[in-house]
């Protein structure tokens, strides 16, 4: 019975570990062509995604260190989906790369760390998962070994994330000093309006805000996103952010529930600043990856508003929005990564007249940008609507109005790109690109996801039934 439980509850982590070891064996074995390896990996990642959906049981292991339930399993499935799409999209870039297997080992190790972080039931486990997810990512950001920008990005990522985890640790140590426990189950009973605990919480929160790049702590984001290879950038902006936000949601709702008033105030300030600064800086960007970095900062602000609702709808809208965000952001990054891998161009100005030469890619990019902006038929609109509705539960209408006004600002910079794709003439447009079949499939999957998750209400209902509130 005990062994049975172990295999069922830990199955997502076990599958990933097996996959990592499989990759090591492939590396040691006979030489294979990159295309062959990539096909094996894509199939394996699909199996990983499919296996995640069976038997989503509730339970805990290792005396409460590791807990899981249907919501956690579903969150991990979203991350599985995202890594599968990213892997298919980076096909064109990795086909000619020398170190394909090392790249996947780094990303999968980081993903494994995120799994342990999401389902941690103890601050020690949480910290280990967090570090396991960030350290390989810094190495992955340096993956274009010869590029100056890439090593600069990796340096900025490792220094700032080490600093952030130092602050987080100081917070954890004060929490331990005031409560005497590290377990998520026992900790809430020892929390109160003790000043040292509030201080510890603020430190803890700053560590989190670094990882999700909420505004006073966002300065590393744009540089790292610009310098890292596009596949790593999409991993950073989608998967790593999503994983930390999931963990953030559970920690706030479960552990810090006794000081909900304090974190509500912090969330309001953070989301206000994040949306405003993210939007204003996105307007002046010229590099596409940098632009997407600031747009993702602004999106995090909206997510924080939803989270501040502290209800079942708050958590459900967080998970739902991230599912949509995976599809829409990855569709945009898919086009950018294809263009960057085949032509090396990454500036917004290069996309002028893109529609003349690549109509399919232009439509994919347009639908993705519409969804990020939140234009009604796409899923992005419903995602933001639910987030703001959840936030409105606290009767803080000026914040909701402010967020809605900022959605209008965001239309300007998203639609500016659509305009330059379709309307502006260009002497030397990007030539017609030959899209690999897998990348094409990934793009169609994203577009289908953008449309279906918005229109099919079952998705939100299902997520809502898994969630819980304060």
């Amino acid at each position: 019975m005990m062994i049975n439980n172990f295999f069922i509850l830990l199955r997502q982590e076990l599958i990933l570990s097996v996959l990592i070891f499989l990759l090591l064996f492939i590396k040691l074995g006979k030489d294979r062509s990159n295309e062959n390896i990539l096909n094996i990996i894509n199939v394996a990642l699909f199996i990983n995604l499919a296996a995640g959906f069976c038997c989503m049981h509730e339970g805990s292991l290792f005396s409460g260190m590791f807990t899981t339930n249907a919501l956690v399993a579903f969150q991990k499935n979203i991350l599985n989906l995202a890594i599968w799409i990213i892997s298919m999209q980076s096909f064109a870039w990795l086909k000619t790369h020398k170190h394909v297997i090392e790249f996947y080992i780094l990303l999968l190790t980081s993903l494994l760390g995120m799994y342990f972080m999401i389902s941690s039931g103890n601050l020690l486990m949480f910290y280990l998962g967090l570090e396991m997810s960030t350290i390989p990512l810094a190495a992955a950001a340096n993956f274009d070994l010869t590029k100056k920008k890439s090593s600069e990005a990796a340096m900025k990522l490792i220094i700032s994330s080490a600093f952030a985890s130092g602050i987080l640790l100081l917070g954890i140590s004060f929490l331990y000093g005031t409560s005497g426990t590290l377990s998520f189950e026992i900790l809430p009973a020892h929390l109160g309006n003790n000043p040292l605990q509030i201080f510890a919480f603020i430190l803890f929160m700053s560590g989190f805000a670094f990882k999700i790049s909420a505004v006073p702590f966002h300065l590393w984001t744009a540089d790292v996103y610009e310098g890292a290879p596009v596949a790593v950038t999409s991993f950073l902006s989608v998967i790593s952010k999503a994983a930390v936000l999931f963990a953030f949601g559970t920690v706030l709702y479960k552990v810090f529930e006794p000081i909900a008033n304090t974190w509500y105030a912090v969330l309001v300030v953070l989301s206000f600043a994040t949306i405003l600064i993210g939007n204003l800086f996105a307007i002046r960007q010229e590099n596409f990856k940098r632009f997407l970095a600031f747009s993702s900062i602004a999106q995090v602000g909206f997510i924080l508003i939803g989270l501040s609702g502290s209800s079942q709808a708050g958590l459900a809208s967080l998970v739902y929005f991230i599912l949509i965000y995976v599809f829409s952001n990855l569709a945009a990054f898919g086009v950018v990564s294809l263009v960057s891998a085949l032509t090396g161009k990454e500036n917004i100005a290069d996309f002028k007249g893109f529609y003349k030469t690549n109509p399919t890619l232009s439509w994919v990019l347009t639908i993705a940008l519409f969804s990020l902006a939140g234009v009604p038929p796409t899923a992005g609109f419903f995602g933001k609507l639910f987030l703001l509705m959840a936030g409105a539960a606290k009767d803080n209408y000026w914040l909701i109005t402010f967020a809605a006004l900022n959605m209008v600002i965001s239309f300007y910079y998203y639609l500016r790109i659509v305009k330059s794709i379709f309307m502006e003439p260009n002497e030397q447009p990007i030539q017609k690109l030959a899209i690999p079949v897998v990348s094409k499939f990934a793009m169609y999957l994203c577009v289908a996801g953008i449309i279906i998750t918005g229109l099919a209400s079952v998705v939100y209902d299902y997520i809502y039934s898994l969630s819980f509130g304060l």
Partner: protein
Amino acid sequence: MNEIPLTHILFVSTALFFIGMYGLFTRRNIITMLMSIELMLNSVNINFVAFNKYLFPDKLDGIFFSLFIITIAAAEAAVAIAIIINLYRSHNSIDVDDATEMKF
């Protein structure tokens, strides 16, 4: 013999933490910045061990936590130094002021 009170130890660890933070913000050599981060992590270790010894002597959580912090700090330093070597190859310097390809 009088025992050293907890507050004295907390004073040392907090001072160490902020010395580390000050070093991180003012130094421009990446290796020195890495050392400052180690200072911050070690001050947290002192915190954990002190809390464990003085407040919860019958538990081991804090001591285990500090063991894991030491391990992870080593892993982090290994990756960071690899990155710094690569940065030195491309920039011929390990001064952060020279790594200015990307701004704003």
